[in-house]
């Protein structure tokens, strides 16, 4: 079965065609500048059989982009997809696992769009368009929140009035679940441990969003993101944890307009707000600014970023109790040894001892950068959300073959 995995960004569409269950990549790529026309033309960067090609196309929305991708696949002689696997950020309380999209599921998806106003609507619109145009092509929605459905109530409950929380569906949903689940499975395999006996803290440190996940017996028990992807760690433009009274002060300054505050906290905070120059922590860590004020600001930005990360690592190691491993993944987690070192140094009290030389050695992934004596392993694992979505899609459509897929 050939599964076409689709991942909608706000102005991009990533796709990957996978032959399942063997997970062989047939083609892949990314349509960029999807949406209203920009200074540069919209392009598809296509990758097939080791060949990289660039195609220009008008792509006013994700549905058109999808059509272009299908055409491109046909032109380049790639096999026809037999199923679509969509990545969705938020599954709300309704979707605790991947779901086959039918009319009822689509209605549910449309109903929960407001839970992730930045992320869900483009993917939902694409699913609706695909249902209309290719009714015979099976579609599966894979949710970032689904892995976190196992977070126990005491970790998922905010200390707000219980009735109100029930009425508005307020609880910790957690995000990046697809990635966390993938790297946890990979890590367990790498260490040769049975997944159902594997406990870990998974650190998904992307260049945009970032979250930690506490994993006990292969299941998520906590995630630093909360009701929305705004809570927790310092992110590229998101503030992460904040005194609720700060949001209230900003709300008053915005004359009671919540949209304005939402934008401030999501778009101009985080690394960007702290550093004032870049939303990418890599730029901040590599910067050699002129002048003491600028240097101090860069220093402060990286310190706040790393300190919050370190504190949460401690919190989640306490949650897990005896972690078999700490897993680092995604752009920052995979490529920045200094970030891993800053948060793993002097963590002996949690049974964490890093081999700093191995950590800095740039070993091929997956790799273990803990000392031989460290009770907790420190792993660097490449995440592959598309592959994870492909696996989930296949497993959902072919439940009997699940064993082979895993």
């Amino acid at each position: 079965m050939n599964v076409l995995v689709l991942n909608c960004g706000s102005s991009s569409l990533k796709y990957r065609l996978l032959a399942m269950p063997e997970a062989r990549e047939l083609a892949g790529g990314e349509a960029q500048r999807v949406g209203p026309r920009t200074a540069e033309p919209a392009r598809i960067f296509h990758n097939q059989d080791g060949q990289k090609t660039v195609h220009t196309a008008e792509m006013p929305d994700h549905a058109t982009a999808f059509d272009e991708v299908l055409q491109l696949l046909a032109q380049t002689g790639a096999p026809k997809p037999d199923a679509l696997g969509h990545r969705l950020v938020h599954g709300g309380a309704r979707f605790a696992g991947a779901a086959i999209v039918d009319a009822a599921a689509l209605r549910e998806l449309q109903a929960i769009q407001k839970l992730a106003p930045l992320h869900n609507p483009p993917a939902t619109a694409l699913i609706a368009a695909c249902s209309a145009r290719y009714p015979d092509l099976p579609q599966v929605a894979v949710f970032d929140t689904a892995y976190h459905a196992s977070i126990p109530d005491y970790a998922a409950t905010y200390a707000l009035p219980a009735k109100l929380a029930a009425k508005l569906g307020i609880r910790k949903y957690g995000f990046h679940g697809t990635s966390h689940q993938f790297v946890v499975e990979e890590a367990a395999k790498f260490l040769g441990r049975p997944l159902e006996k594997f406990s870990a803290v998974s650190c998904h440190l992307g260049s945009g969003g970032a979250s930690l996940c506490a994993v006990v017996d292969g299941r998520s028990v906590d995630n630093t993101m909360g009701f929305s992807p705004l809570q927790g760690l310092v992110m590229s433009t998101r503030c992460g944890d904040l005194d609720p009274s700060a949001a209230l002060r900003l709300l008053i300054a915005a004359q009671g307009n919540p949209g304005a505050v939402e934008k401030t906290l999501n778009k101009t905070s985080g690394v960007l707000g702290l550093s004032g120059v870049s939303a990418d922590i890599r730029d901040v860590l590599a910067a050699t600014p002129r002048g003491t004020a600028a240097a101090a600001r860069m220093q402060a930005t990286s310190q706040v970023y790393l300190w919050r990360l370190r504190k949460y690592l401690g919190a989640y190691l306490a949650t897990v109790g005896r972690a078999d491993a700490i897993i680092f993944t995604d752009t920052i987690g995979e490529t920045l040894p200094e970030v891993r070192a800053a948060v793993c140094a002097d963590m002996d009290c949690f049974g964490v001892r890093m081999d700093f030389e191995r950590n800095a050695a740039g070993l091929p992934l997956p790799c273990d950068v803990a000392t031989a004596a460290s009770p907790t392993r420190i792993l660097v694992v490449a995440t592959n959300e598309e592959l994870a979505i492909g696996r989930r899609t296949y497993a959902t459509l072919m439940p009997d073959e699940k064993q082979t897929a895993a």
Partner: protein
Amino acid sequence: MYAILQSRLASLKADAAEFAQELVGVESLSLHEEQVAELVEQKMRALGFHQVVRDDYGNVVGALLGRQATATLALVTHLDTVAAAKDDPHPCRVEDGRLYGLGAADCKGGIAAQLYAAYLLKYSLLPLDGNLVVAATVAEENGLGLGVRGLLERTLPEMGLKPDHIILGEPTGLGLYYGHDGWMEMDIEVEGLNPFQVDDIARNIATDLGEAMGSPEAGGENFVLSQHARRQHGGVATASMRVARRLRQHGDEVGMLTQVTHEARQSARNSGAVEVAVQVRQDAQRLYTGRTAVARRVVSAWNTDPFDPLMTRARQALAAAGCASQPGKWQLGRLGMGTAGSVLVNEFKVPTIGYGPGCEAQAHERGEFVELEKIYTAIYGTAAIAHSLIGIPVCGWTADEI
């Protein structure tokens, strides 16, 4: 914070009620507000307002200055009342929790509420970021905004204050009001050589316009008509009458004058050689301070966007304080009613809303009263709104100790 306000209010209620009764006890027909102005000024000084000014118009203005003067909120009422009906003995009294007397609802209860709302914030030790102005103006009822125009044009600028929001203490029955229709009084003169013909034409005009618009007795309809009067000057006979029309929107004044002129001339056509002229009624008024000013008898319709941040924040503040906040507009059941909103919104472009303890139905009525409880609620509610607009927010702090 709200617990503190309520608790402190409890110890101010008696004073506030006494002050309201004092105000009602002093007659203050338009252009004769001196005595009541004196009372208000004394009270502002006694309550420790940072600045207290009585301007040349006779308005009384008190200000509590904020730490940063980020914004200025003005609480505005008027000192004057309309003349009592002859057989109303104007007994000022408190009975069954009601304060009776001329101007109780319109708008002396409002003066007391706004003045004590400002004091309540001060007395509760809740610091302000912006400035809080309390102003009671003259010649509102009769002078059509003479006092308030002076307040905005001269007095506040001289005090270094420029209001960003205004709350009128006019009777709203504790609803949040954001505008009303206007009205316009016009004098129609019919001039001709034949006095009988002039009479007939005047009568025709009265009938036609009356039919077109109904009569004022029908419960605050659009039109009020005075019987025409004729005078003879040499060989020329002149009949004059007065009409008034409701204005639905700001900016209707010129159109309305043209329309009424046209209608009056239509009624007079085919009736021989007469001149029909229509003009806005205007007259000179002498304020109690001796200053004179021309009053045009136009109250323009005004409207603050019900989704203006002022409305939003006021509604949010009242909800947080546990007060009702029914939005609405004044009905202006009678000719001559209006508020300073016409001047404030249309001429000075300051977002304005109304929040006061009196009921509109009581205004200009015999046996006018205001409920004391509503004065207390207005004090608390106005303080809550003011704090939300210009107070230093207390976000995150509980009333419980830490």
